[in-house]
C-alpha cells in the first residue's frame, strides 16, 4: 500500500508539473523570420523559361496559344492518341474516364461526370490535355492537335456540329453545360453551425441495430496488394443494442477447421528454388560461426581462418592462419574438405579433429550441416 501511495503521489506531482509547464508555454514554435527587404536568393527567371513552363490556361481563355483544330482532324488524332483508354467515341475503356454523355445524371444515384455533363470550363479541357495528356506522353501534342481533340470531344458530346472548328478566337464564346452547377464550399453555414454542439453521452438512442455488413472481406496476402472477396454474411443473427448492452450474446461460431492449405504448400518446388532455400537457410545457420569465421569479399582470418573456397580445399591451408597441430598434420597428409568431411566435422568438431582449437560444439542436425555447406560453397577463393 505504501508503494501504491508513493506512486500515486509521484503521479500527482508529475501532473502538477505538467499543468504548470502548459500554462507557461506561450508559443511553442517560433515562426521563421521574414527579412525586411529580401534575401537576394534565387535568380531572375528568363522570359523563355517562363514561356516554357507557364502554359496553364485560365477560364477566360488567357494563356491559350494561337491555333485551331476541326472535328474531323480531332477524330483522327483522338483515335490515334486517346482512344486506347477513352474509347473511339470518348465512351471510356475499362476504368478509364468516360468523356462524353451523362447529361442530366448528376442528381442520379450514380452520376456520370463527363466533360459534357460536368466540367464547368472549356479551358480546363484544353489545359489538361495540353499539359497532362496523352497518359505516358504528356506535352507532346501540338497546339493545333490539342484544339482538334477538344473540338472532337465537344462533338462526341453533341455540343457542336461536325464542321466545327475551335480556335483561340472563338474559345471564350463557348459555354459549358454545367457552368452553373457549382457553388462555393458552404459547410460553415450548412453544417458547422449545427454540429458545434455539446455531444450526447448517455441514452443517446434507445436501440441500435446493425443495418449493413461490409460488402467485401479483404485478404492481405504476404506479397502485397489485397484481394476483395464478397462477404456472404447477413445481418441475421446479430444482436441489437440498448443501454443495457447487446440484446443477446450470440454463441461463438465454431472456429473453421484448419485450412487444407498446409498440404498445398508442399507442392513441387523446383530444384533451383530448393537450392536457393538451402543457401538461405545456411546463411542463417552460419550466424553461429561468424564470431570466428569471415566469408565473402575481403574476408580475413580471425580466431578462425576465413572460409572462402573452403569446399574442396586442402585442410589447414589458409595462408597466415596459425592452425592447431591436428590441422598441420592434415595438411601434410593432403586431406581435403569435401562435403562428407565438412559434415562430419561440423557435426562434432572435437571428435572429428581431435585437438582442434575450435570451441564450437557442433551442428546436430544434418539439414543444418548441409545448409551451411551449400552456403559456404557460394564463396570462392
Amino acid at each position, binding site marked *: 500500500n505504501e508503494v501504491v501511495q508513493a506512486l500515486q503521489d509521484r503521479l500527482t506531482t508529475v501532473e502538477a508539473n505538467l499543468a504548470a509547464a502548459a500554462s507557461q508555454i506561450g508559443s511553442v*514554435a517560433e*515562426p*521563421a523570420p521574414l*527579412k525586411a527587404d*529580401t*534575401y537576394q*536568393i*534565387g535568380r*531572375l527567371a528568363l522570359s523563355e523559361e*517562363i514561356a516554357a513552363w*507557364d502554359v*496553364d490556361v*485560365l*477560364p477566360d481563355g488567357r494563356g491559350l496559344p494561337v491555333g485551331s483544330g476541326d472535328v474531323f482532324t480531332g477524330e483522327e488524332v483522338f483515335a490515334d492518341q486517346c482512344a486506347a483508354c477513352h474509347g473511339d467515341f470518348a465512351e471510356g475503356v475499362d*476504368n478509364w474516364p468516360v468523356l462524353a454523355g451523362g447529361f442530366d445524371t*448528376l*442528381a442520379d*444515384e450514380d*452520376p456520370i461526370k463527363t466533360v459534357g455533363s*460536368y*466540367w*464547368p*470550363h472549356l*479551358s*480546363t479541357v484544353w489545359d*489538361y490535355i495540353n*499539359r497532362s495528356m496523352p*497518359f505516358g506522353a*504528356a506535352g507532346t501534342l501540338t497546339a493545333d492537335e490539342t484544339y482538334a481533340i477538344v473540338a472532337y470531344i465537344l462533338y462526341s458530346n453533341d455540343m457542336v456540329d461536325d464542321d466545327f472548328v475551335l480556335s483561340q478566337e472563338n474559345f471564350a464564346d463557348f459555354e459549358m453545360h454545367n457552368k452553373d*452547377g*457549382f457553388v462555393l*464550399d458552404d*459547410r460553415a453555414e450548412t453544417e458547422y453551425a449545427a*454540429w*458545434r454542439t455539446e455531444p450526447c*453521452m*448517455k441514452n*443517446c*438512442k434507445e436501440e*441500435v*441495430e*446493425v*443495418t*449493413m*455488413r*461490409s*460488402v*467485401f472481406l479483404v485478404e492481405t496476402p*504476404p506479397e*502485397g496488394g*489485397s484481394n*476483395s472477396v464478397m*462477404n456472404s*454474411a447477413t445481418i441475421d443473427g446479430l444482436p441489437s*443494442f440498448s443501454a443495457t*448492452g*447487446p440484446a443477446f450474446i450470440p454463441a*461463438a461460431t465454431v472456429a473453421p477447421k484448419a485450412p487444407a492449405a498446409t498440404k498445398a504448400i508442399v507442392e513441387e518446388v523446383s530444384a533451383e528454388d530448393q537450392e536457393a532455400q538451402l543457401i538461405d537457410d545456411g546463411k542463417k545457420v552460419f550466424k553461429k560461426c*561468424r*564470431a570466428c569465421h569471415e566469408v565473402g569479399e575481403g574476408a580475413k582470418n580471425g580466431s578462425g581462418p576465413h572460409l572462402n573456397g573452403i569446399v574442396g580445399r586442402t585442410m589447414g591451408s589458409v595462408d597466415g592462419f596459425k592452425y592447431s597441430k591436428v590441422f598441420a598434420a592434415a595438411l601434410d597428409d593432403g586431406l581435403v574438405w569435401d562435403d562428407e568431411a565438412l559434415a562430419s566435422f561440423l557435426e562434432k568438431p572435437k571428435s572429428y579433429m581431435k585437438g582442434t582449437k575450435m570451441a564450437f560444439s557442433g551442428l546436430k542436425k544434418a539439414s543444418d550441416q548441409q545448409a551451411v555447406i551449400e552456403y559456404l560453397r557460394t564463396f570462392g577463393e
Partner: protein
Amino acid sequence: QTPDPAITELQDWASYLGAGVDETPYGLPISFESDVIRRNVEWLTASPISSINFTPIHALEGTITPQGCAFERHHSGAIELHKDDYRLMINGLVERPLVFTYEDLERLPRENHVYFCECAANTGMEWAGAQLNGVQFTHGMIHNMEYTGVPLRTLLKEAGADISLDKWVYVEGADASSNGRSIPMEKALDDVLVAFKANGEALRMEHGYPVRLVVPGWEGNLWVKWLRRIEITDRAVESREETSKYTDVYEDGVARKWTWVMDAKSVITSPSPQMPITHGAGPMVISGLAWSGHGQITRVDVSKDGGITWETARLGKQGDTKALTRFYLDTEWDGAPMLLQARAMDDTGYVQPTKEQLREQRGENAVYHNNCIQTWYVDVEGKAENVEVS
C-alpha cells in the same frame, strides 16, 4: 503448467552472435513485420500508375507515419528527380519572377511542423455503405509526418508577389500529370510550407522528392509533389483537379467546389477488422487516431454500443494543430459483442458527424470529404467487421 521452453531452453539468439553494425546500412523493418505494408485495391483505378494505396494504420502506433509505409497517390507515377536538376519558378503577378535551386531553398529560414496529409477521398468508398473490411482501406489514405521547409510566404516576399487577398497562388508539379491547384492568398500566407524533409530525412520519391508543398489541414491533392512552379494569378485556374475532380456532388446534382478543409475525424485502429481481439475477455486497450484540418483535437469519445453510451478517451498527448492525435480507451472487455465507435471534437467545437447526418446534408455521391463516425462490430470471438448501424 509446464515450464516455458522459450525461457528454460538456451535459445539460438542468446548464444550465437547477431548481425554486425553494417549489415543493413539503411534498415528495413525486421522480417516478422513484413505484413505491415502499404496495400492497394486493384479494381479501384484503371492503372497502378494513376492510383492510390493505403497506409497500414491498423498496425501503427503513436502518431508519426514512417515514410516507407505512408500512402502514395500519383496521377502519372512517382518520378526520379535529382536535386541537381530541381528548379522552382515563381512567376505571374510578381515584381521579380525567380528561379530557385534546391540549394537556394536550404539557405532560407525554415520551420518544422507535424501535419497530417489526408486524401479528400479517404473513406470515400463508404458513402454508399460499408464496403471494404479493414481500417487500412476505409481510413488509410492518411499520413502524418514532421516536415521541414521554408514558409511559402518567404518565397512570395522574395519575388515581390502581389499578396492582396483577392489573389491566388497556383502551384504545379514537375511530373507528367503536371498536377496544378489554386490556393487562395490568405492560406498561402498562413501556414503553407515548401518542404524538403520529412521525419528528419529527405522526402521519399513517392512523396515528391526533392520538394513538395505542405498545405496543413487541407486535402492532400493540394500538397503538390515535385513542386516546380508557383504562379500568382488574379483568379483560380480551375484546373482539372479542382473542377472535374475534388469537387463534391450533392444529392441535387449541384457540386460544391473549393472544399479544401478536412473536417474533424477519428477512427479506432485497434481493434478493427485487421486487428481482432485475440486475448479474450479482460483488460484491453482501444486505440485510435483523431485529426482536424481546423486545428487541435480537444476530445475523443468512444462508444461500445453503437452510440447509445459514450466514454471520453484519453489523448496520448495534447493534440498538435492539424496533426494526428492518438487516443486510448483503457478498458475491460466482458466478452460480449460490441459496436465500437469513436467521435472526435476539435478546438472550434466541431463534433464529428454520424453517417446519417452527413448523408442528410450531402446525399451519397459526394465521393470526397467523408468524415463520418465509423462502426466496427466486434463479435464474441473478438473479430471486428466494418458495419453500419441504425
